[in-house]
């Protein structure tokens, strides 16, 4: 099992088209957005916390593509070239075959997602400082909760990979998920989407959308420059709810994926 896990990791880092290029493109996009948006519309230099308040959702939503890419490589790819068939024929238990792919996929998804989010904000902190808009402790709490939601999201992607056994199925779903996450969080004008957004536990992308948006108030003057005030506090029920629902649903998707794979005839 350890060998298979190491193979998955090696395979992943060698894949230019579906891992390296998207990761680099994502990092460049987010870094550029930081560098190009150096002031807000009131002319103030954007500190890291001010940038977070206004652009965290965009960063979190587009980064959803990465777990899709990773689970495709770790899980779906070996169906395409029949590697999994060979492993099972050689007598490897299905549970080991399953978790040897899922576990590295989950870990690397979490690490990559955290990296993609951390790089632009760390860069901005070095450039302009953290600022006073949002406390760092609140941001770190939200990051942990978002990673819990990403765990759930990645487990769902893993299930998709084993159900479809098609390369790029996870990537396709993750692109829709990224668009849906961003649209739902911004979709106040669409009643259907607005209704879904009122509950942060329903889907992992709703949790991510809710957690990456900060309740904000703003004032302005005759020059129409906005002054933002953030209300970042999370209630205990939200924190507990995201963690519990994420863990339960992660287990649920893993169970579904494994059960299907266990009885799959692989045709």
């Amino acid at each position, binding site marked *: 099992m350890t060998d298979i896990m190491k193979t998955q990791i090696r395979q992943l880092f060698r894949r230019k088209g579906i891992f390296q290029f998207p990761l680099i493109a994502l990092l460049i996009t987010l870094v550029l957005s930081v560098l190009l948006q150096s002031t807000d519309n009131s002319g103030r230099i954007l500190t890291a916390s001010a940038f977070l308040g206004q652009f965290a959702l965009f960063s979190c939503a587009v980064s959803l593509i990465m777990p899709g890419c990773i689970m495709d490589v770790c899980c779906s790819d070996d169906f395409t070239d029949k590697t999994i068939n060979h492993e099972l024929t050689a007598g490897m238990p299905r549970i080991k075959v399953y978790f040897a792919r899922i576990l590295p996929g989950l870990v690397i998804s979490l690490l990559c997602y955290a990296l993609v989010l951390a790089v632009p904000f760390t860069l901005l902190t070095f450039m302009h400082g953290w600022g006073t808009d949002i406390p760092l402790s609140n941001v770190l709490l939200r990051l942990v909760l978002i990673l819990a939601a990403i765990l759930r999201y990645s487990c769902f992607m893993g299930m998709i990979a084993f159900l479809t056994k098609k390369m790029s199925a996870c990537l396709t779903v993750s692109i829709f998920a990224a668009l849906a996450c961003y649209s739902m969080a911004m979709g106040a004008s669409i009643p259907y989407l607005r209704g879904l957004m009122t*509950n942060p536990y329903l889907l992992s992308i709703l949790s991510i959308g809710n957690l990456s948006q900060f309740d904000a108030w703003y004032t302005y*003057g005759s020059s129409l420059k906005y002054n933002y005030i953030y209300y970042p506090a999370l209630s205990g029920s939200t924190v507990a709810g995201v963690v519990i629902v994420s863990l339960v649903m992660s287990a649920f998707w893993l169970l579904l994926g494994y059960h299907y794979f266990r009885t799959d005839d692989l045709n």
Partner: protein
Amino acid sequence: MKQFDILALLYGIAACIALFILADRADRSKSTGWKRCWLIPLLTIIVAKDGPELSLLPLYLGSLIALTGFFTEQKKLRQRSSVIAALCMLLTVPVCLLNPRYRAIGYKADFQKAFDRMRRHYVLSAHKNIDWDALYAAYMPQIEEAERTQDAAKNYYAWAGFTAAFHDGHVSYAMRDREAEEAAVRAILGNDYGLAVMRLTDGRFAAVNTDDSLKAHGITNGTIITKWNGMVPDEASKTSPAWNMKLTCTDDETENMWELGGYPDIDNEIFYSGLLAAGLGDETASVSYLDAAGKEQTVTLPKLGEYADRLFPAMETIDQGLPLGNLTWQRMDKTTACLRVTGMSYDSKSYASDKPSAYTEMTDQLKMQIQEYMDDGVQDYVIDLRNNGGGSPHMVNAMMSLFAPEGHYPVIYDGVWDDDAKCWKTDENGKYLSGKVTSFNGEDFIQGGRVILLVNANTVSAGDYMVKAMRGLPNVTVIGFTQPNGSCQAVGGLTLDGGALSFSNCVNNDADGNIFIDSGTDRQSTDDLDVQIPFDEQAIRTLFDDGEDYAMQQALALLR
């Protein structure tokens, strides 16, 4: 049941039926790929667009029961689970219909959030001496009762009372359920007895918008009403449950919207003080009036319907503006043209800008028309600002520059924002500091022509701004039945579960560093009329019997 919940239920049952049929197909084909179909019932959660709901538990349980088909390949077991799942889902209907907390709206959480936000950010707290604790104590229990019973009308009345307490045209609440809001307004206004009652300028009260059936008693438009159910009409109004509430009335035909109650300026409150009386009563109401001979008579009038159906048209008539689109001209006579301004915006691009050049296209069009009029002999102008809901002060500046004499006119001062404390800066006395000034330059494009600003109590925000900025110019006269609304601080809004709240959020000062226009504890706003049009029997007959625009007639008479 809500539409999407019904859709989710139908989807779930359709999925169960499909799975029942598929069970046979899957058994015959022996492929494990068919298992994936048994995940479809899980989508019922997303179809219910308002999110999970406890009353839909049978639907969710049914989806989980149907999901058991994913874990087995036995045809009979799959079919049985589909049937049981469908039956379980059907239980959703009685549960939703009988549960009073079905899709309950969080009125209490709404009020708490809005109250906390407003307490922190409402810029006129000190100016109006707002007692936040007293407001909370008065209205939170009402909101809690509304939540407990899920009574939308009770929620609306609590908000109507809360927002009225600020006497600020920018503090208002609108329910998401507009039908429930309208029903609540209509219910509290009471019954129609065939007339509305308005206060005349001389302090007496008169009937307006009278029903033809009242002619038999000698009551027509303009008849002096002395008592309603034994009380002087304004005193009677104060016994109405709608007194001390800010109600929103929308005319379905014109889509004009008025607010009744919560007036910033007490003079406007007095002007409308007779209106609520005429909705009071049960199956009958006792009305005392002066007959043709000037003798007091008392008659018992039967209920004819809902007072809202008489009140709204009466307000529409009294508060009418020229029925033209925004920034549309009408030639009034040989020497006078009227510009109708219903809102202070030109287009979305210019609205988002603070640059004078953003309104060049608008001013060019206005200049072109003014030049045409001047070439044809027009010398004077009426700017009809009645029911002007406000907008951009920069648009106002661009417009005013054409009508004002040459000169530079500083008007309004921004507050100074403290980015560390996240609040507006004040001096040691608690007075807001003044920052950037907004001003305009008069061009006298109308070459010394006279300007009448025609206003009413619904001329608000940037409309108030224009009145304050132009009043006092040598060629400008402000006239109307009432003063403008008296609210000119900039606005912020909050979207809530059951509705939306707006309130004054950004500081605007005058040249002395005092709050610009908005009334304080004295309930006197600082933008006023130059000439008050008397609301008398003549005005009533012209408005309601002849169907003419009396205020406009008075404006034109002033120019002759």
